[in-house]
């Protein structure tokens, strides 16, 4: 069973807080806070995806914006075709757009997964700095493609005029949409938790610690890493689809390397490899943006300073700082 450690109590507290905030916001009639909480949940979901690759597998992907953006564009493109009643393509068979979230999610997950499979086949042959730079470069490639391809708005992005539908739920109600995002987030955290403890998770963590050892027992580190990378991308892609629905807008900025950096920040601020780290990290990020963004338009400067201090002096992130452990085992 799950033991009642300091970290588990903290995790429960974090999840409860995120869940309660929108209800309080509704009670005090401040719907903007519901949107903030939804952003936290979606950013955290993107981070949960990266955390699988980065935290458990030690794969420092600097290109997860690619998957976040692909998920977003999957949502945007499907919805815009559905609204214009134009098929997406007709050869060899006709495929139409849709405004059903469940189908959109499925497409977002598949597209991100396929992209990760392709990118992973190249990048996972390398390690260290090469891996970081190559993932970054592939994400930039997609970014420039999105900018220069005019069919879906190019540099200006693509608006989604109606929020997509979810069976039995009024998705236009901010609280309902938050609850959808929150549930997806919790399911993703659960999935990563289960994976972590499985045979696959054992091999993945061993690959991070010592891939020579993993090979010597007869397990191919490459296959393990590629699988983790693909699943990781799928989760982040799903977050992108939700983000598109939240904003009802997608733009090439979702692909930019700042986005990759920010997803990484969510993971780091909370604590690398910790199941709830990305939620804490995303919440801190949004809170920081909200508080300092209200005081000065140069809040990113302070974000940079905080990040620098965390990296230099508080390894293990906030959860590590509170529980006093550098890394969660």
């Amino acid at each position: 069973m799950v033991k009642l450690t300091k970290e588990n109590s903290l995790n429960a507290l974090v999840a409860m807080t995120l869940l309660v905030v929108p209800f309080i916001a509704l009670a005090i009639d401040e719907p903007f806070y519901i949107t903030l909480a939804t952003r936290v949940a979606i950013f955290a979901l993107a981070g949960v995806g990266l955390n699988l690759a980065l935290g458990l597998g030690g794969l420092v992907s600097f290109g997860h914006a690619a998957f976040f953006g692909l998920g977003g564009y999957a949502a945007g493109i499907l919805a815009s075709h559905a609204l214009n009643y134009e098929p997406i393509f007709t050869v060899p068979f006709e495929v139409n757009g849709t405004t059903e979230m469940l189908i959109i999610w499925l497409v977002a997950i598949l597209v991100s997964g396929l992209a990760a499979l392709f990118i992973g086949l190249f990048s996972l042959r390398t390690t260290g700095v090469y891996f970081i730079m190559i993932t970054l470069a592939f994400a930039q490639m997609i970014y420039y493609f999105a900018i220069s391809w005019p069919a879906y708005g190019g540099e200006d992005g693509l608006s989604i005029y109606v929020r997509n539908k979810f069976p039995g739920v009024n998705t236009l109600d901010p609280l309902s949409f938050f609850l959808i995002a929150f549930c997806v987030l919790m399911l993703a955290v659960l999935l990563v938790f289960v994976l972590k403890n499985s045979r696959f998770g054992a091999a993945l963590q061993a690959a991070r610690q010592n891939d020579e050892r993993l090979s010597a027992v007869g397990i191919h580190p490459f296959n393990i890493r590629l699988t983790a990378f693909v699943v990781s991308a799928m989760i982040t892609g799903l977050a992108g689809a939700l983000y598109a629905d939240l904003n009802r807008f997608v733009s090439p900025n979702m692909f930019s390397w700042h986005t990759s950096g920010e997803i990484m920040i969510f993971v780091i601020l909370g604590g690398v490899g910790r199941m709830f780290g990305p939620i804490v990290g995303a919440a801190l990020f949004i809170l920081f943006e909200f508080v300092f963004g209200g005081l000065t338009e140069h809040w990113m400067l302070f974000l940079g300073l905080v990040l620098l201090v965390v990296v230099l002096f508080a390894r293990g992130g906030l959860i590590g700082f509170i529980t006093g452990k550098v890394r969660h085992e």
Partner: protein
Amino acid sequence: MTSALFIEQLLNGLQFGVMLFLMAAGLTLVFGVMGLINLAHGALYMVGAFACATVANFTGSFWLGLAASIVAAATAGAIVELVVIRRLYKRDHLDQVLATFALILIFSEGTRWVFGSFPLYLNVPDLLSGPVMLPGGIQYSLYRLAIIVIGGLVALGLYFLIAKTRLGIRIRAGESDREMIAALGVDIRLLYTIVFALGAALAGFAGALVGAIQSVQVGMGEPVLILAFVVIVIGGIGSIKGALVGAILVGIVDTMGRFLLPMFFQLFMENAQANSVGSALASMSIYILMALVLIFKPKGLFPAHG
């Protein structure tokens, strides 16, 4: 398509490659000697451009601005190395990426705070303005030609520095064996600061030179930084020679791709569509080049360490 246009584009590609080399040289040197991945290298490029534009607009002399760009970038580099970077040498790459990403945020927002969001403009110096007639009757921008020449001279100078001087010997020793060089009594901390400041100066210099043909604005270093990463991945991280070859390759492939691919697609598509397909593909061309190189040479064209 005329051959004059073709040669002009080829020269533009070469000029772009030379700029990329100035950026990539510092990156690859810092990685080769100190094992550090520095995302904030683009920020130093921006510092150089802002310093040059400010001083040139204030004094009216581009040349003073150019000198200021080198001094400002080297100083900023040295300070950053002393305060932040030297704490990162023994850290893993993840920490290096995050800390230098944080530096980008600090530099970008700091610069925006001081200079505002509007771009500054920097004029090409009178001495180098206007076109020049090349053999074969081709008109080409004198300033761009000068950049190619200056970049070539810097590459030569860098080669000389590393191959022939005491500092260069120490840098090469630092690449192959850190303990040994420390045992030889070389002040390794000072050496690292010098190498970092040297890389910064090259980046700042590049920023100033480009500032006169593009606008000087916050964030200008970032696209160049990522291209410089592609360059050193192609060339082999840590190799100056690889950086030079990679930079020229990337500069020419990118420029010629943008020029030729839309024309190519016009052969069998209507113009508007050909332009969009061509330019979209052109924007991806160097990444495809990188992927191809990595298939055959996973450590780049000139692997630096064994």
